[in-house]
């Protein structure tokens, strides 16, 4: 038995995988002590199975955990007091960044503060050049003097990022040794070990973020593993990483930056599996709907999309991690987005959100602004008495009244017309976000399937998919806990990188192969250590390359781990042209190429074939009844309401209809058809 648990902002989701069956549980997140929420979700599961918690946990081999702990600590400024050590002459790496700005006429947003203040930034006398040669030797006495200052300043963590440490790490290493000696007990992160990537700002940024999380994540993971053990768990605790893999909790405690994007990163992993199972491996647009954000990612040819430009917060306004991460684009649109009418009489949705507190008006927890969730209640999409399986009763009248005064009257519309308009506008925003990334990655939505994850996904996934002109929409049976389900499908993985600049014209075969060999050795060591006992081990090599005189590299997959012959080099060049063509729709076969950073990723597969299925409940009736629901095209219409779990596969349901489970509601628009796949997901086509 394996357990996957994802702690989100509002809910702590748990998926229990027992053989070929999975079961889903949701508990409230407990922000003051998130481990309590985890234990609550486990207690719910134990109760369901009619077991004592200790017995139940005793049977589990693996506990896989995703958490927003690290990201929340960063967003609320509750990280360690961290110092930044940089090359002499370059104190403002974290201040100057790489430039860039959004909203040219918006001067109300100030320039971002550096992640580490200038007063905790120290210049190290030393300089290495681009070719790795030492221009100025390291001044060790100066480092020791700085260590003394850090002591005086009560610094709790240190990030070290020196220029060109990626080609020659000696200075950074020596600084690390000196700090260990003269500043004992204070965690240190060295940039060339953490994130050996070109561009000093993003490397430094990743380094200081990692350092700043060390004390806190060590403590959190220590508490989690200890309390799980006390509760009876004797298996292995793993953490979900931003890279869409899983790692031992102890390893993440040593490199906590791995955990900052851990939740959203799992959605495409799950999406990839469901698209392959239920839509013949079509390109998948994976949309995960939360209370405040709408996270979108693309999976094509079974590849999880990667980026090295991940931002914490808004682009150019937050901090870039520069750390390889699953590429997920987030827009501020969710069930909590507030609808309003501006002074010019225009309907608006967001960017303000009611979040989970006070939440939508209908929650009756003090919310007064009408939200998208309130609208879905007004339109009849959500059953006020069956929200989250009936654990929470919603106040439809309050929602309608708020919408009438705040929106409908101002627009001269009926309450339901206003609610439908708000849905249409929210749909439009989501379509815009998806359009942007599909264009960026050269995917035609017409050939892709939209996968809806998150509890609120089903409310307008069909509308979004239809507007995009997708091949279809898929709501997986575990869609409401997509990230946790993804965690069960992930591999134990790690990736390694090393910079070595060379060109296609004068390709440094020997040096490149030496780099590749060392990367491979590190992958093998990982496979024999944390990955021991895997069903299958794969090592994927890739290189970040560009045409001569371009600035931005793209990642090119390599077919083998060595470049021995001219033919190998030619194949690599061809792979680059092909990748460039597929991303940018152009290639330049005549052009010289530059290779910058070499990468290897090792994946140790734990389980065959994704994850198990939700069992069909025996006692639940198929049709729950009928309900009046509203669409702009049809007005109020009488619709079938069907229980998701009891739907047999292969029997189509024609819209308009509502398909409900304890965790999600799917609106099947008029003119569309829903059918349950063999695997258990809900396919909607139009």
């Amino acid at each position, binding site marked *: 038995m394996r357990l996957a648990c994802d702690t989100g902002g509002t809910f702590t989701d748990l998926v229990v995988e027992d053989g070929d069956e999975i079961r889903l549980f949701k508990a409230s997140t407990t922000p003051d002590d998130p481990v309590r929420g985890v234990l609550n979700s486990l207690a719910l599961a134990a109760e369901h199975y009619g077991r004592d918690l200790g017995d139940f946990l005793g049977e589990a081999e693996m506990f896989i955990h995703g958490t927003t702990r690290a990201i929340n600590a960063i967003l609320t400024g509750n990280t360690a007091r961290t110092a930044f050590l940089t090359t002499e*002459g*370059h104190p*403002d790496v974290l*201040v*100057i*960044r*790489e*430039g*860039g*700005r*959004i*909203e*040219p*006429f*918006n*001067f*109300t947003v*100030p*320039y971002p503060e550096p992640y580490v203040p*200038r*007063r905790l930034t120290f210049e190290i006398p030393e300089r290495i*050049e*681009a*070719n790795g040669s030492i*221009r100025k030797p390291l001044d060790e006495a100066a480092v020791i003097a700085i260590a003394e200052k850090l002591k*005086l*300043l009560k610094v709790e963590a240190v990030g070290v990022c020196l*220029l*060109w440490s990626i080609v020659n790490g000696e200075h950074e290493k020596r600084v690390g040794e000196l700090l260990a000696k003269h500043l004992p007990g204070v965690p240190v992160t060295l940039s060339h070990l953490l994130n050996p990537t*070109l*561009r*000093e700002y993003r490397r430094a940024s990743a380094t200081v973020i990692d350092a700043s999380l060390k004390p806190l994540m060590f403590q959190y993971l220590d508490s989690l593993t200890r309390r799980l053990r006390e509760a009876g768990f004797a298996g292995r605790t793993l953490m979900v990483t931003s890279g869409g893999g899983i790692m031992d909790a102890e390893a993440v405690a040593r490199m906590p930056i791995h955990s900052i994007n851990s939740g959203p990163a799992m959605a495409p992993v799950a999406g990839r599996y469901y698209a392959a199972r239920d839509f013949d491996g079509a390109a998948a647009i994976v949309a995960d709907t939360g209370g405040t954000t709408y996270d979108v990612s693309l999976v094509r040819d079974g590849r999880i999309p990667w980026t090295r430009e991940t931002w914490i917060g808004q682009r150019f306004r937050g901090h870039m991690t520069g750390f390889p991460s699953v590429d997920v684009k987030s827009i501020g649109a969710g069930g909590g987005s507030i609808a309003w*009418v501006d*002074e*010019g*009489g*225009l*309907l608006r949705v967001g960017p303000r959100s009611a979040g989970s507190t006070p939440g939508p008006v209908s929650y009756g927890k003090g919310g007064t602004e009408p939200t998208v969730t309130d609208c879905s209640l007004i339109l009849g999409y959500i059953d006020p008495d069956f929200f989250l399986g009936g654990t929470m009763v919603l106040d439809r009248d309050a929602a309608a009244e708020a919408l009438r005064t705040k929106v409908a009257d101002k*627009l001269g519309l009926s309450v339901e017309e206003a609610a439908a*308009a708000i849905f*249409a*506008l929210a749909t*439009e925003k989501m*379509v*815009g976000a998806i*359009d*942007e990334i599909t*264009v*960026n990655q050269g995917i035609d939505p017409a050939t892709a399937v939209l996968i809806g994850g998150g509890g609120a996904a089903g409310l307008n996934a069909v509308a979004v998919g239809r507007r995009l002109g997708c091949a279809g929409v898929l709501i997986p049976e575990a869609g409401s806990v997509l990230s946790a389900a993804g965690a069960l499908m992930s591999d134990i993985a790690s990736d390694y990188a090393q910079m070595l*600049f060379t060109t296609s014209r004068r390709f440094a075969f020997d040096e490149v192969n030496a780099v590749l060999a060392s990367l491979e050795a590190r992958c093998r060591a990982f496979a024999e250590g944390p990955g021991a006992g895997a069903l299958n081990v794969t090592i994927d090599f890739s290189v970040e390359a560009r*045409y001569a*005189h*371009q*600035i*931005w590299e793209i990642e090119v997959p390599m077919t083998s781990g060595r470049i021995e012959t001219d033919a190998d080099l030619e194949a690599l060049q061809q792979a680059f042209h092909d990748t460039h063509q597929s991303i*940018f*729709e*152009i290639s*330049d076969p005549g052009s010289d190429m530059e290779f*910058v950073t070499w990468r290897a990723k090792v994946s140790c597969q734990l389980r065959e074939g994704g994850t198990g299925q939700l069992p069909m409940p025996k006692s639940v009736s198929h049709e729950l009844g009928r309900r009046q629901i509203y669409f702009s095209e049809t007005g109020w219409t009488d619709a079938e309401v069907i229980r998701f779990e009891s739907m047999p596969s292969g029997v189509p349901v024609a819209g308009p209809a509502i398909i409900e489970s304890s965790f999600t509601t799917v609106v099947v628009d008029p003119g569309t058809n829903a059918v349950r796949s063999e695997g258990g997901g809900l396919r909607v086509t139009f």
Partner: protein
Amino acid sequence: MDGQSPPRRRDGVKTAILASRFDSIARKMQNTLFRTARSGILNTAHDFSCVILTADCRLLAAAESLPSHTLVGPDIMCRTVKAYHPDLKAGDCFLHNSPYEGNSHAADHCLIVPVVDEGGTLRFFVLAKAHQADCGNSRPSTYLGDVVDVYEEGALIFSAAKVQSDYKDNQDIIRMCETRIRVPDQWWGDYLASMGSVRIGERELLELGASFGWDELERYAEAWFDYSEEKMATAIARLPSGRRTLSSAHDPFPGVPEGIPVKVDVEIDAEAGRIRVDLSDNPDCQPCGLNLTQGTSMSAAMVAIYNGLIDHGVPVNAGSFRRIDITVRENCCVGIPRHPFSCSVATTNLADRVSNPIQRAIAEIAPGFGMAETGPIMPPAMGVISGRDPRNDGEPFVNQVHIAVTGGAGTPVTDGFLSIIHVGNAGMCRIDCVEVDELHHPIVIKSRALVPDTEGAGTFRGAPSARAEFGPVDGCVMKVLYTADGTITPALGARGGGPGSKSRAEKREKDGGLTILPACYGATLEEDEWIVSYSSGGGGYGSPLEREPERVLHDLREGWITAGRARDVYGLVTTGSAEDDSLAVDWAATETLRTTARAVR
């Protein structure tokens, strides 16, 4: 057109949805261009813009891009296309870069596509403007400040030249470009990227027309313009009425030994909800490359106005433009250029000298609005470096760098944005990474850091100056060409704020000594010679004595200012020490010091 027509009934829902659709289309055009462009100036520096206009050439939607590109100019260029080609057909595309007919400088190539429906009716225009790495100038730079006219500048000029019919290229024009433009492959790649962008915009608009109906889209456009105009009127009504005439001056450059004075006459009429700017009382066109085009002079004025409103909720389009009157005259260096005067540097230097006094004038008329002046450019750390690369068999290299440039102006609500670059850029372009520059070019960037006490002091201060020192690697001779304004006239503060520090260029000789360099210059550096560049600081907004003490404390703790300046300029008295990070505001002493200082002023 002038806002006098009776208000139309607006559908707040449909308008919102279509506004989102049009924005998405403009963004899609922009993304297509960005992702497919070949040259660094496009795919790194983002120096391009994509816009949608109505059939009668009014700006309807623009993707987020350089303000100086988009506000005025696309309208004039589309009118030019219509004038020369009254019978527009589906499949047409026009290449236009004439500075005398609405474009900015000749290096900005525009592709203009008329969106023609199935029945042959013109419905919209889409336009993509992209700064080329080369445009066939007489020398390898797209900014030639020291040329007497367009002949010496040497750019290929296209005036609404039909580059595609029936969606097929006119090879005559392609060959002209390939023969004359220095990096023809790169140009061709960028041409394809721009073409992809306008064709995607066209396709999406045709689909939109098919699904909503063209009449509906026309109704939408008018409703959106009306809405935008109302938002603009409301925004202007928050300001008091008033009028100011302010001046500024571009530094002396070759061809203009006295520099170029610029005078702006700004009037806010809050009751009527209008802002007027008169630029006509300014010098004639000058025998240098600094002259503005009609597009860049009017856009420069508009940038200042939208900056000054401090309300980014006002949509920037022909609807809100109805509330702005800008007067320019023919044959004026900040108006309408007369052929054959050169406009090679029309987007930056002199344009900033138009925007800056206007946003300052708004501040002087309207407390809580307007902005101080943004730092002028371009210091050596933004120059063009060239030479032969000893690491690469002596291959020639040439590129513009963006190593260290700052300049953000203090505003009524925030401190100057550090990486604004210059006022017309609004910080939309990027700053170089040291490692990327050192990998690409035989250059060593010895240092790059902010300089304390260089901010224009204020209630909200300007951005400080950045200092950078760089030179060639061993065995290389490197040339650095730059055109630095702001060595004499700094970015001024507004409403009692101080000026930002001036820009400066120096050379560090082999013996370590420093020599001052001219403002517009080409420095040659040998091994162990370095150029030292100081960017201009931005001006401050409001009296520094009114700056919140916590903000002053922050700047002091963070080393943006020194203890002396905190006390003397900002009137801050502190307790504790920087050594153990225990500095704190001494509130009573600060208030006493400030009261005394206010009395002296």
